[in-house]
């Protein structure tokens, strides 16, 4: 596979419990601050696992340009739109478009690729009062429908609202996709946008991923499955005992070299490529030995024409769940290098929580900033690596990056999905 001409990352947007911008999230990692706290939005006080990554101080009515829009979208959509608008502004795409005498071609060659959570349990609660009132009698249900449920209910819960309104807001009309594939949906959106640029379908894309992890009914099931931690998210630690879910959104603007060059765009990193695969190990399972994941990582290294020596670091999925961490640790360990040559490996979810669909893009943005700042944030919650992770090059502290200029980011989700992508620092003259 040819990797020329390159695809650049030219805009970033980020909204997590750790902050409302990429810079705020980065600073939080530098300060080693954990933002996982008891959930305050719902009364979960008697739940064993009641920690989460909440978006405190996020008020969509004040932070989105169109307040009227809030009547026809769901709360998670507001996260996605916030991140998308932030990335578009950060990239200065619209400023450049204003300078064009005919913006039509620009709009038609700008794609929108989204990782969407699909539907959440919370979205169906508009029907609960009607069910309670009519005691499940279908005739009464139908009779009272129009007085009890908002007429725009369906439009509010469309899983492609962020895609649609990003397009309407910015006027972008190019190819688009909306991935609803649990936690890897965001990273798949990024990978497919990359391929669409490489194939010449589009010149640039806004890639967005968002999720509302703090859906109490979903938390109930995650807890029953033993996936949640009652006391902290500790990737690869001997004390890792589950993940902590979070709300959040992330967005990235990708551009072809020609597009970036034409408007003298600032390059934050080069996206070299990536891939996703399923292990076919079940909806909630993962292969314990991590062989499939290891093969995928190896494949991405090869197809992106990188060598292990090029790797400055690896950002692991590191969700704090013992099964996932152990299989991931084995997959990384199996890359063929001894412990002394293992690239530095880290994970970021200990700070803002697991933002599910958004997590792949959140990690990619933070990896981009790590390459740019030549500093790798550590896993602040790590005290003693568990046996499966002892051959990894882990640290609790921030480390300077002294070797290599590329990074791998790993992302995993239900349906035993794995995704991996590679980014590389931009040439100094483009940064």
């Amino acid at each position, binding site marked *: 596979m040819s990797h020329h001409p390159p695809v650049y990352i030219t805009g970033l947007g980020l909204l997590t419990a750790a902050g409302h911008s990429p810079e705020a999230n980065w600073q939080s990692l530098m300060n080693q601050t954990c933002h996982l706290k008891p959930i305050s939005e719902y*009364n979960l*006080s*008697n*739940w064993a696992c009641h920690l989460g990554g909440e978006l405190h101080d996020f008020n969509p009515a004040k932070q989105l340009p169109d307040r009227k829009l809030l009547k026809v979208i769901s709360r998670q959509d507001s996260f996605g739109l916030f991140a998308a608008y932030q990335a578009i502004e950060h990239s200065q795409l619209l400023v450049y478009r204003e300078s064009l005498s005919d913006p039509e071609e620009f*709009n*038609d060659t700008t794609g929108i690729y989204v990782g*969407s*959570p*699909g*539907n959440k*349990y919370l979205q*169906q609660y508009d029907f*609960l009062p*009607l*069910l*309670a009132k009519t005691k499940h009698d*279908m005739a009464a*249900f*139908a009779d009272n*429908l129009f007085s009890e*449920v*908002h*007429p*725009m209910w*369906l*439009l509010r*819960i*469309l*899983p*492609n*609202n962020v895609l*649609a309104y990003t397009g*309407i807001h910015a006027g972008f*009309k190019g*190819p*688009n*996709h*909306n*991935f*609803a594939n649990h936690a890897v949906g965001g990273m798949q959106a990024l990978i497919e946008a990359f*391929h669409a640029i*490489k*194939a*010449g*379908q589009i010149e640039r894309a806004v890639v967005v991923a968002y999720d509302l992890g703090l859906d*109490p*009914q979903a938390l109930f*099931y995650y807890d*029953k*499955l033993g996936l949640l931690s009652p006391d902290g998210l500790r990737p690869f630690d001997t004390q890792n005992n589950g993940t902590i879910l979070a709300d959040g959104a992330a967005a990235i603007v990708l551009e072809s070299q020609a597009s970036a060059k034409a408007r003298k765009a600032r390059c934050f990193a080069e996206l070299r490529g990536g891939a*996703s*695969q*399923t292990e*076919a190990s*079940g*909806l*909630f399972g993962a292969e314990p030995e991590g062989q499939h994941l290891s093969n995928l990582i190896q494949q991405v290294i090869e197809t992106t024409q990188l060598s292990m020596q090029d790797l400055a670091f690896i950002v692991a999925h590191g969700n704090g769940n013992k099964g996932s961490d152990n299989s991931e640790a084995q997959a990384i360990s199996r890359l063929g290098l001894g412990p002394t040559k293992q690239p530095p490996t880290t994970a970021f979810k200990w700070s803002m929580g697991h933002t599910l669909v958004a997590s792949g893009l959140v990690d990619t943005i933070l990896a981009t900033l790590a390459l740019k700042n030549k500093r790798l944030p550590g896993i602040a919650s790590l005290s003693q690596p568990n046996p499966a992770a002892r051959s990894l090059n882990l640290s609790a502290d921030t480390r300077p990056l002294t070797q290599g200029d590329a990074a791998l980011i790993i992302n995993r989700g239900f*349906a*035993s*999905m794995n995704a991996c992508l590679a980014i590389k620092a931009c040439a100094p003259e483009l940064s």
Partner: protein
Amino acid sequence: MMHSRRVAVTGLGIVSPLGNNVTHTWEQLIQGRSGIAPIQQFDASQFPTRIAAEVKELPLPKPANKPERFAMSFTHFALQAAKEAIQDAGIKPTSETAKRWGVVVGSGMMTAEFEYLKRFQQTAAPSGEPDWQSLASQGNTFFNLSDFGKTTSNAGLNLLIQTFGIQGMATSVHTACASGGQALGLALQVIRRGEADCMLAGGFDSMINPLGLSSFCLLGALSTCNDQPQQASRPFDGARDGFVLGEGAAFLVLEEWQHAVRRGASIYAEFAGEGNSLSAYRITDSHPSGDGAIQAIKSALRDAQLSIENIDYVNAHGTSTKMNDLSETNAIKAVFGHRALTLPVSSTKSQTGHLIAAAGALEAALSVLSLKHGLLPKTANLTMPDPECDLDYIVDGPREVPIKAVLSNSFGFGGSNSCLVFTHPKKGASA
């Protein structure tokens, strides 16, 4: 740009309101039968709309294996259609080829089954407001892993992954009524770029349940022609009053051309091109001029390296709503110019109803069958032409015409547009 890897259609599978396999569906379609009737699945007698195009005589069986624990009726449709497609293709993933197989599904809104929502309301929201303490205290009796599995965004995808042992690229997309078409378009790209040799691609959906029906009734989008269900879906007709909900699934096996030729596969058609665009106009309405759809059709023709002279038939999105029918008619006129008035166009939704996320996949399969049989399905119920919709909608019954290339259109809420081009495997359709 010449594509170095061409893509063949080598397998078809359908579960539709007209029949539970390809042969039956096609026969019923050509005989002019309607799949629309009074709703049988629940008591809809007090809803404004009481008719739909339901799948008949395909009850959800008891789970035969672990993955099927998480099947719902519409994921069961997906499984049946996918099994037929794989069997029809005469090839399936093996341990040696599993990584060269991928799957892309256009899936419906994975809202919970109504019975489950009722159970949740009784347990955790007796007053109509969720009480999380109550859910926690009754958690052990309420908890059933299958409930969570069924409502996970990629549950349908996982069912196919595990049933067939697919280990390559796998994803689930949702762009409302464009989902099935976009799933096929994405699968085409995955084979072209060399990431897979075979893809199982299609769509599945059912919104024929109390919540789905309610949501469209609230919007006033459905036909209320309850006394004459078979005449309710009237695309391009002056007396149309909305669309008719349908349900079902359709899957295609797509295969790299030389891979198919080498194994002596029977090739239905070449999947020659796809066009994908965003209208960026309004959530529910298409632009009256056809903007958005125009770009998708043009892009599909360009991708297939065909001119307007090469297209012999258009399987229209044709929903039977004023806005869609006008917009699509104008888009066809804008693209096909002088040819538009004589180009055969029909909407099979007049007999199948609107399968929402599965519509694009079903209509792609029907388009391929049109190529195979040299038969163009009619637009049923077009008896009072809308003066603004003045194309050749094939009102005179199925038309026997040798054809070389067909265009299949799908346009979704949110503005995503998908247009697919299939060509005859032997006659071709050179530009």
